[in-house]
Every structure is written in structure tokens, then in C-alpha cells.
């Protein structure tokens, strides 16, 4: 590697490689992106402790170009943060990028997609969640009536056990059958 500054210890890199879907090079690239968010806060070399204690505030994470235009950016940050507030440590960020990477399997993505769409965090995608999701997706262009229609249809289609909201199994059932899920739920670092 020459005289590059070593960002992580060998143990850390191996750990990360084992626990995520990334190769070494990708992990270093993710770190570079993370550092670009706030170079003062994030040091050039990360010890083990710093990797899961130094948290970048959520407003700055949302300014990343990959997330800036995403309607669910706030919720994504909340899902992947360790305390639910949206402030991401490096390990949270790495985890997020790993789930969104190409190598992550369908069921992992489905699980996190479920948590992202579950806006009120009650382990079910209810009516309000769906209404809010339609509003965010079309940037408020649909009328209230149309949104209601859509949500009713979606619940009709997908709700298997008939309790008026989607559990994880219902959601997974829908999403796993969509051929585009893998390619849309994908952020390239």
C-alpha cells in the first residue's frame, strides 16, 4: 500500500468485511464519503471506539448528494442510526451503505425497506404510513381523494391477514415479487 495513511486497523477492516457486503476498497471509499460530510468532526484515522461514538448530526448527513433528493431521507437516517435520532456514526453509515449496495440480498433489503416505510415505527405499515408515503413520493401532487384511493387499493392488494395494516410478511410478499426492487433500492457509493 505504500505510504498511505492507514485509516483502520487490520482487525477493524476484517471485522467490517465480515459483517458487511463490502470489500476493503469499498469500505475505504465509504469512509471517504463519510468524512466529506464533516471533515472537522470526523478524524482521519478512526479507532475502534471512535467508529461507533462519533456521530454526525442528521442535518449534515441529509446533505449528501445520494440522500439529498430522497423523499425518505429523514426516515432512512433514523432507521440506521443507533439511537433512532438520525445522527449516524461511521458504523451506522457503513451499515446503511452495505444494505443499499448491490451485493445485499433481497431479504435484507426488504427488511430495511419495511422499516423505512414504517414511518411511525410501530412495526406495521398502517394507513397513515401509506398516505404519508404517497405524499412524499409524488411531492404532494396527488389530491387527497386520489391518495385515499391508492392507499385503499394497496391495502386491498397486499394485506393478507386482513387487519388493515401491512405486517412485515405482507410487505415482503409484495416486494420480493417485484423485479425492480433490487435495482431501485440501491445506492451506489
Amino acid at each position, binding site marked *: 500500500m505504500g505510504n498511505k495513511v492507514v485509516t483502520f486497523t487490520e482487525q477493524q477492516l476484517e*471485522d467490517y468485511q*465480515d459483517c*458487511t*457486503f463490502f470489500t476493503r476498497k469499498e469500505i475505504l471509499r465509504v469512509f471517504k464519503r463519510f468524512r466529506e460530510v464533516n471533515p472537522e468532526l470526523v478524524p482521519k484515522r478512526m479507532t475502534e471506539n471512535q467508529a461507533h461514538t462519533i456521530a454526525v448530526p442528521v442535518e449534515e448527513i441529509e446533505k449528501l448528494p445520494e440522500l439529498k433528493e430522497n423523499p*425518505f431521507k429523514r426516515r432512512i437516517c433514523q432507521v440506521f442510526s443507533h439511537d433512532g435520532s438520525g445522527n449516524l456514526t461511521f458504523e*451506522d453509515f457503513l451499515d446503511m451503505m452495505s444494505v443499499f449496495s448491490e451485493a445485499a440480498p433481497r431479504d435484507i433489503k426488504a427488511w430495511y425497506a419495511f422499516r423505512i416505510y414504517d414511518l411511525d415505527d410501530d412495526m406495521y405499515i398502517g394507513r397513515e404510513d401509506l398516505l404519508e408515503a404517497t405524499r412524499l413520493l409524488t411531492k404532494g401532487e396527488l389530491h387527497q381523494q386520489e391518495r385515499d384511493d391508492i392507499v385503499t387499493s394497496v391495502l386491498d392488494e397486499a394485506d393478507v391477514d386482513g387487519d388493515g395494516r401491512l405486517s412485515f410478511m405482507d410487505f415482503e410478499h409484495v416486494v420480493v415479487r*417485484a*423485479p425492480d426492487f433490487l435495482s431501485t433500492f440501491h445506492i451506489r457509493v
Partner: protein
Amino acid sequence: MEEEVESIEMNTSSARRAYTLRNNVARQVAVNFMPSRQIAHNTLRLRRVNSEHNALLDALVDAPDAADAQADIIVREMEQHQSLMEDNPVSEELRREALRDLPQCLTMKRNVRAKLSASVSLRSKRRPISFLKRLKYRISFAWKRTRDKFRDFIFSIELWYEAIRNIEGHLGSAVGSYFHLLRWLFGLNLLLTTFLLCFVVVPQALHDQAGNGTTELGALDFISGRGGLEHTLLFYGHYHDAEIASPGPLRYYMPFAYFYTMFCLYLMFFAVLCYRTAYSYRRNFIEPSGGTGALSQLLAAKLFCGWDFGIASPAGAALAAHALYLEFKELLNEQNRKKMITSAWVRVWQRLANVLVTVLALAIIAGILYGLWLLLAVEELTENREIYISLAITAVVSLCPVLLHFIVKLEYYEARTAFYVTLARTWLLDIGILVILLIYWSRSDDECWETRVGQEGYRLVILDVLVSLLLIPTVELVRGMLFKWKVLEAAPEFDITYNSLTLIYNQSVLWLGMLFSPLLVVAVTAKFLLLFYVKRESALRMCHTGKKVWRAAQTQTVLYMLVTLSLFTMLFAIGSVFLRSSSVSCGPFRQYEHVFAIVSEGLLQLSRHHTLRAVLHFIVRPGPIAFVLLGLCVCVYIMRARAAAQRSMAAILRQMLRLQAKDKDFLLNAIEKVSNGEWLYSPKAEEYGEDSHTWKYLNEVRKPSNAGFHFDGSRLSHSFLERPKSYVKENRPTSYHTERPKSLEDGDTDSSFSWQGSSSYLNQKGEAEEKR
């Protein structure tokens, strides 16, 4: 009791969440003892910890040592699977997969990993493993390591990575997939170039240096490939047919080199393409099987998978939002519109129209091919007739997709089917043209027909450069500017299909021409390189995303399939035409009477081994070949039948799963209620409808005569949380059974239950029955 229940329901969502969680915890405990959770899984993909387990973990969120306790729970769950806990590389791999599949945050995963390794090393029994096993482990380990290194290497090349990411951010992943195809083909061609240059061109060049040659190049020779260029490295005819003088002791025999390099390259890339197509097909067609056509699930799929997370520019995001809005409206309209009842006559008419138009399209294609044949056969045109013919071909290839696009509008297909049909027809036309060229030249009386074919390929590539690198970008530029000056209404879109067809056409020309003109690879590689930059500029500056994004993933698979089919057809055509003949006066195979003799004489030396020759002769006769073909057909039929059976089986199983989910839900709800002490037996019959599950259950299964129910508070499931022991076999459900005297009136269900509800119901029920 009732007040408690009511007060819980009126609380805010946080309390509702707590309630849900509490129920989930009780539910989770019950679920953990189901037999399906006790089996150790041998598959490499460990069953994921699902949402109910996470409920158990979430319940610990407020505890002081939360992270550690949660990690402990996870480790304990994983310890139950024996295959994970062994101390060999296979288990290590399984552990790694299990870790990656855990839907937990990274810090937790590292924690779990540390604990797991500690646990494994504690448990490992050092047993000497046999030599074979050790060898197997070492091989699989080494293989895994090389694969990782290869992945790292491929990734570190990352050609154009940033550029493609930028494009995806602006225009979406469908357009990005076109650029991925371009990049992949470019990589393929680069590899081809390297091999060909090393093994075929450079030795020939070295040989040429020894001799002396004068070449005079005319003006038009660059385009036509004739004249001065004819006897250069560019074409087949020039290649030496014997040994090349080499400085060292090794001998380099040109015919062998030429033949085997080409052979190996063709086969290798065929294998790679087949693999890639099959992988893509499996990922995009088979795995998400089921609702492709039905409108149901479309709306939900659109809602959940509609937003492309890769979009990174404000303009792109606005466009995507608008596109989604339009698609939602369209789907809503389709739902609201009454289904048009098409009578039988209308359908017959539609089918008839489809057949007629298909015949028309095929006739057009056949007409073009025949016209080409006649054109080639006309002898007395000007000297540059080859250039004119190639120009005509290029024009036809560029314009025909548009024509076919209009033709397909006359037919009654759905949008996707129409798209595939156009694609297939255009591809057919392209391949037909190339095959006609090959056949014509091989049957002509020309001295060196192979060079002619090579020249055709060369001309086609050069002229296509004019079209795709100059003409089309200019047209798009003009359209973009007209749009900007508000002359045109519609924004120019990046036409993925047209551009992909161009790529496939170029690649097919390459497959045809590579054998006859080794340097063509260099030309095509350079062309793809330029094409990337030109298309990138054009895409970024002029184009907007297409309004309709059609299932980009499935289109990708179809494109890969077309590339593979092109290669296959070319291989077939070349094999049947080329191998049996050989030009006497040119090319590296001059000495052999037919090209295949290189294998039969040069390698196998059949003239000396008579038995081998007899065997091979026998195998090649029509009889055995027909037999083999028949066997293959039978295999294909069997596999198709099996696939159809499995598909219907999968549908049945899916339906069963859904029903089982409902069953499980019902039962778990019942268990929760009972274990939380909320099972209230209301004596009023009208609270339950006649067909409610609860009513049926109460009346038919739990016969009112079951006596002896007492509510035992200490058995509440919350107490399970305080137990730190792992849920292994000692803690089976049997452990918290109490001895209960069986009374005569017990129903069938009491044998293994110890659920004890309140006794008040039964007394009331008994009274109600007496009153009746």
C-alpha cells in the same frame, strides 16, 4: 380486567406500541418453541431473525445494559444451530453469512461476532480431521480467497465508475443499465483485443518485418478496405501459413495459433455470455415469479419500489416524482375503468390482425434480405460498389427499427409485448443481413472470400461510426436545441432500446468479422470507447428521462439474451460455412484442404490413428447425431414439464403459506390473550357472530364443560424476560406444566395445555345455559 383492557386501547401510540411490544414478546416466546425454530439449518443461508425476534430485542431497549443483553440474546439464538458452532472453515463461512444477514446495526454485529468467536473457541473439540477433509477445506478456502481477491481487483479497475454514477443520478437506473451494458461489452472487447494482439497479430507483424512489402493507399481505401489495405495485417488473407521464424528455440506455428486462439476466444466468450444471461434471467424473471401480468400487486409494487434511490440531482428527482404521479394516475384510472368486455369476434379479429402484421413484417425483412442478395449479385456497377452496398446496409439497419416501431402499432399487443416483438424483429433483420453477407461471399468465386468478408465487416463498422458517432448525436443536439428554443414540444428522450440495438449490432458485426479480420476488434473497442463519451455528453445535456420506465431489469436480461443469441448464430454460420472449405491462395490455412483438417490432421493426426478416425467418423454420421438431438429434445421437454409442475406447486404452496399465516396469527393471538390473562369469556352470545372464529372455538373445541380453570398470575409471560438462561431443550414447554387433576368433563384439548383462564366465565356460561 375489562377496565384495564379498555384503558390500554385508549392510550397514545407510544403506549400502543408498548402494548404491541408486550404482546409481541409473549408471542415471540411462544414462537420460539415452535418446531420450525428448533431445526438446525444446513443451508448456507441461515434463516434470518425476523421481526418478531426483534420485538424481543426492542423490549430490552430501556434496560441499562441494553446492547450487551441484546447481543447475548442473538448469540444464544445462534448457538442453537449446531452447524454454526463448529470450528472448521465451513462453519466459519456459515457464521459469516449469518452475521451479514442479521438485520442489526454494525456495532451490534461486531459485538455478536466477538461473542460468537469466544463461544466457538470454548466449545471446540480438537479432533484430528482426516487428510481428505483437510485438503477439501484448504481448497475451498483458497478458492474463496482467490475469488475475493478477484472481486477486489475488478473493483479497483472501476472504469468510468463516477461517470456512470453521475448519469444514474440524473436519468435513473434504466439509462444507467445501458451504460453498464456498454461498459461490459467494452471490457469484453478489450480482453479479446489483448489476446488477439498477443497471439496472432504481433507474431505476424514480426514476420512481416523480415520480409518487405510496399503498400500504396488510395483515398477511398480506408473506407472500402480494398486496394492497399487488402494485404495488410488487417485481413485474413495476409496471414502466414507456416512457421514464423523466431529467435528462440520454440517454434511458433501460425495456422495453429490462429485457429486455436480464435476457437478458444469464441468458446470462452460464449460460456461467459451464457452464464451472464442465465444469472440475469434467474434474478429478474424467476425469483420474482408470479404477478407479472396481474394488475393486482402493481399498485403496491409501484408504491414500494417506484422510487429509484439512486437519483441524486434535483432535476432528476422532480422528473421522477412527476413520472410517479402520472403512473399512479394511470393505474388508478385503469382500476376505475370498467373492464371492456371483448366479444369473441373482436378477439378473433385482433389475433388475425396480429398474424397478418407479423407476416407483413417478416415479408419486409425477407424482402430486404433478398434485395440485398440481388444487389450483391449485380456485377456491373461502378468500382466502389462495395461502399455503396455497405452504405445501403447501414442505412437500412439504422432506419428499420423506426419502421418496425410504426408497424407494431398496427397490432393489438400490450405495451411490453409490442416492445419485445419490435426488438426481436430488428434483431432478426440485423442477423439476417450479416448471414446473407457471409453466405454470398463464401459462394462467390472470389479468390480469397474470407478477406472479402473481413472487408465487409470493416466497412460496416466504419460506416456505422459515421451514423452513431456523428449523425445521431447531431440529430439529438439539434432536437435539444429546438426544445430549448421552445420550437418543439416534446423533450428528446434517451432511447434505450435504439441505442442498445446499436450496441448489439456492432457486437454481432464483431463476432462475424473477428475471424476474418483480427484487427477489427481494435476498431470496435476504440469505437465503444468513443461511443461512451459521446453518449454520455448527449445524455447529460440533451435528454430527459423517459416518461415510462419499463421494468428495466427485465429489459436487461432480454438484451443479454440477444447478445448471446447473436454469438450463437454467428458461431453456427461460421462453423457451417468456414470450416469445410479453405481458400487455396490465401490465409493461414492454405496447406490444408479444409480448415477443419487443422484439428483432424494437426492435432489428432487422424491419418495415423485409424481406430480413432473410424470412431469419429461414426459419431459424425447422421444417425448418432439425430439420436443425440432426440435425446436433448426429450430432456428439454422433461425439464419444461418439471418446471411447469414446480410453478404450480409454488403457487399452491404460496396459497398454503398465506393460510398458515392466518392460522398462526389467530393462534398466537389466542395464546397472547390467555397468557396475559385477558381471555375474557363473555357470556353474551350476541357479542360473537354466528360465524366468528372465537364463537366456533368456544363452542366446539373448548366445550363449556371444561372445568377447573384457575388464573395463575405467576405464569405471566413477562417473567420470561428475567430468566437469563438460553432456551435450550431443558426449558421445554413441559417444564411449566402443573399437575392438575383431570376431571371427567374435560374436553379433548386439555391434555397438554396448562392454560388457565378465569373461572368466572364458565360459571356464567353454565348459568346462561341453564337459563335457556
